[in-house]
């Protein structure tokens, strides 16, 4: 079920009313309702893959209990490996089998031993990369004794499948989300209103910004040879806003929806396009995944301690694995490696933490230096996005060669050029709101808080009507495929 669908617009109020009016007396009933709702939400897409979630949840539930019963290190390690093996095994089979099979075949062919790659007709279950990481974090934290294992099977299964963030995150830590299933939830008017506001903002990002950008991005990337370099440049910039609007929009809707049920999910994006260097960008982009890799991969590898060689190795591992997490394609690996290259000088010069505070704090505009730093970071990020969006490495290089040509000075040659201008107008307006709200959880969190209520409601109404009037053709969320 898509957040931007009529189905969800009907589903959400029904679950909300049942949750607060029918099951509100009993926490277990509320958790059970969330579990059923989450499974219905997932089954709407394909009920067959529910079994994977159930199996993955069951394995980690029993691993958790097993870990609580033993202090023997060998046994504990074996239990942890079981969880990792099952979760990574599912992910490896459904997401990476064909990639590895074809890559090995190509490699052997290059070495003079050609053979036919066996390719399976595998459907990638929606959200598998998200819920496997979430459930694995539980087992790792229990193994590290950072978290007490739970015996409440309904609460645990609800935690793994919690519908607001089930299919595209934020990837929640068990230490943050699981305890919330054991606390009595009380309806809070302000939290719920805030949730609705964040949902509205998320829908705007997704339907007005991302879905409209998608039309031109698809044209530019599917047939780059048909377009001038200036159009291709617009295509890349639009992709930067498409992926940001799409994914951060999803996260906003997820966080807002969770708030309606009394849950607090972690922030997943923090105005990444206002970053002054790539290290800041990665602290602000897909925060739940970056911190997951930091805590469970990067730090265990040694992090930024040790020799320069170790630092370089760890950075490349973390970025390449992160790229590969996004999809079974060399383009994602290249994208990850390119970001590692961007990041490395900052790390080696120990300048990777120079921009921790929000940009231009307490000021209306950034300084000239900050402005150019933001522009440079955005430009190199866009360059990397080409590899992320292209269907293959050769397509990415073709796109780049066409982009750096004389026609960069020609007028863009998209057929519906007036739509491009309208979209640029929306993007500028969107950036202005984001800039204004850059030290809040989401851009319109406090926007107009001093206005009289009717004026504030008129603003929300206008936003809703903009979504209705200018919402692009319904497109599935990009991160569903990861």
């Amino acid at each position, binding site marked *: 079920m898509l957040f931007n669908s009529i189905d969800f617009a009907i589903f959400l109020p029904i679950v909300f009313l049942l949750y607060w009016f029918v099951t509100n007396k009993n926490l277990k009933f509320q958790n059970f309702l969330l579990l059923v709702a989450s499974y219905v939400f997932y089954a709407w897409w394909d009920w067959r893959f529910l079994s994977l979630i159930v199996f993955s949840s069951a394995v980690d539930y029993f691993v958790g209990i097993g870990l609580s019963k033993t202090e023997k290190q060998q046994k504990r390690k074996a239990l942890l490996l079981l969880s990792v093996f099952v979760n990574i095994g599912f992910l490896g089979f459904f997401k990476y089998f064909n990639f590895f099979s074809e890559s090995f075949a190509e490699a052997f062919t290059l070495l003079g031993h050609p053979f036919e790659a066996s390719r399976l007709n595998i459907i990638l279950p929606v959200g598998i990369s998200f819920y496997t990481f979430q459930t694995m974090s539980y087992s790792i934290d229990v193994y590290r004794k950072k978290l007490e294992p739970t015996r409440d099977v309904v609460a645990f299964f609800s935690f793994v499948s919690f519908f607001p963030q089930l299919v595209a995150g934020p990837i929640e830590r068990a230490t943050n989300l699981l305890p919330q299933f054991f606390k009595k939830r009380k309806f809070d008017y302000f939290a719920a209103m805030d949730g609705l506001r964040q949902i509205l903002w998320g829908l705007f990002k997704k339907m007005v910004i991302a879905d409209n950008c998608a039309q031109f991005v698809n044209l530019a990337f599917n047939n780059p040879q048909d377009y001038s370099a200036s159009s291709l440049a617009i295509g890349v910039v639009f992709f930067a806003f498409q992926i940001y609007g799409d994914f951060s929009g999803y996260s906003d809707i997820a966080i807002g929806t969770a708030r309606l049920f009394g849950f607090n999910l972690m922030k997943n994006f923090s105005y990444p396009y206002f970053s002054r260097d790539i290290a800041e960008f990665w602290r602000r982009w897909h925060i739940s995944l970056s911190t997951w890799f930091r805590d469970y991969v990067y730090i265990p590898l040694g992090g930024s301690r040790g020799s320069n060689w170790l630092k370089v190795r760890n950075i490349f591992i973390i970025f390449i694995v992160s790229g590969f997490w996004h999809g079974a394609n060399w383009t994602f690996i290249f994208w990850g490696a390119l970001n590692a290259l961007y990041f490395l000088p900052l790390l080696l010069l120990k300048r990777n933490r120079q921009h921790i505070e929000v940009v231009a704090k307490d000021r209306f505009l950034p300084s000239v230096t900050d402005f150019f730093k933001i522009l440079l970071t955005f430009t190199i990020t866009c360059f990397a996005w080409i590899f992320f969006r292209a269907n293959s490495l050769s397509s990415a290089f073709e796109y780049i060669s066409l982009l750096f040509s004389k026609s960069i000075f020609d007028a863009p040659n998209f057929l519906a050029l007036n739509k491009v201008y309208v979209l640029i107008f929306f993007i500028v307006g969107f950036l202005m709101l984001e800039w204004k709200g850059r030290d809040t959880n989401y851009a319109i969190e406090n926007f107009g808080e001093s206005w009289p209520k009717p004026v504030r409601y008129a603003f929300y109404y206008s936003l809703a*009507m903009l979504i209705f*009037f200018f919402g692009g053709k319904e497109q599935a969320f990009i991160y569903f495929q990861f």
Partner: protein
Amino acid sequence: MKRFLLESTLFSVAIIASVYFVFLQADGKSDPFYSRTTTPKQASLILGTSKAAQGLMPEVLNPYLETDIYNFSFTVAHSPFGPAYLSAIEKKLKPETKDGVFIITVDPWSISSDGKDPNNEAEFGESKSFMGIAKSFSSKPNISYLLNSYDDNYIKILLNFSLMEVHNDGWLEVFPPMDSASVKNRITENILEQKVKLESYQFSQTRFEYLKKTIETLKKCGKVYLVRLPVYTEIAEIEDELIPDFNSKIKDLANAEELPYLNLMNSDTKFTFTDGIHLYKDSAKDVSAGVGRWISKE
């Protein structure tokens, strides 16, 4: 909670009411199909693809037919002969119709299909479009169509600017630039496009069977006439390449079903086309008058 429910309900009602108001404004300029899904059920229909949608004018035909005929033709992507179009026709047809007039236009594309197996109904693309999913073709506003099948931004409904208009009788009028250079460009583009399509399309026996079923369904409701509309010479050559024995197939069908068949191919020099495929309005008027005279003589 009461306050939250009250405010969120009022806000939702305001949005839903505004959306409904906008939907009420949708008309023949909103897109090339919508208004045909909103007009009342009809007793007489013109059927086919976009050639018929633009080329046959009910306003011109009506005096000859002595009845009000409605143009229920769409495009080759939406209304080739198949289960979806037949079901839509049945939904559009006034129940208990006995003395209707039905002009079925035929061409090779409307009984062809692409995909691996041209006879596999499951692969027919129109079933996934509004033609296959619309529950009604006579409700105004057609909410289901607007929510599921409307392809443009909804702002277009309020902007009174369009290069086409579907009239109340279903005829689609288009307003393209008609200078010779523009027309030539469009013809060249269409020839190229149809040559590319030719590589993936082939005759579909299943679609041909559905053409028969459509005829048999409509014969119970009145008189049926088969018409092949003219196209530009080079487009006609491509159509001949697609199904070389098309005319004999249709003649045999017309004989078997005891229907009159009017083939207007090879008369393209008399007519003006907007793009080699679709008749321009002046020529559409002439062709419609010709078809009307032919029917009145039959």
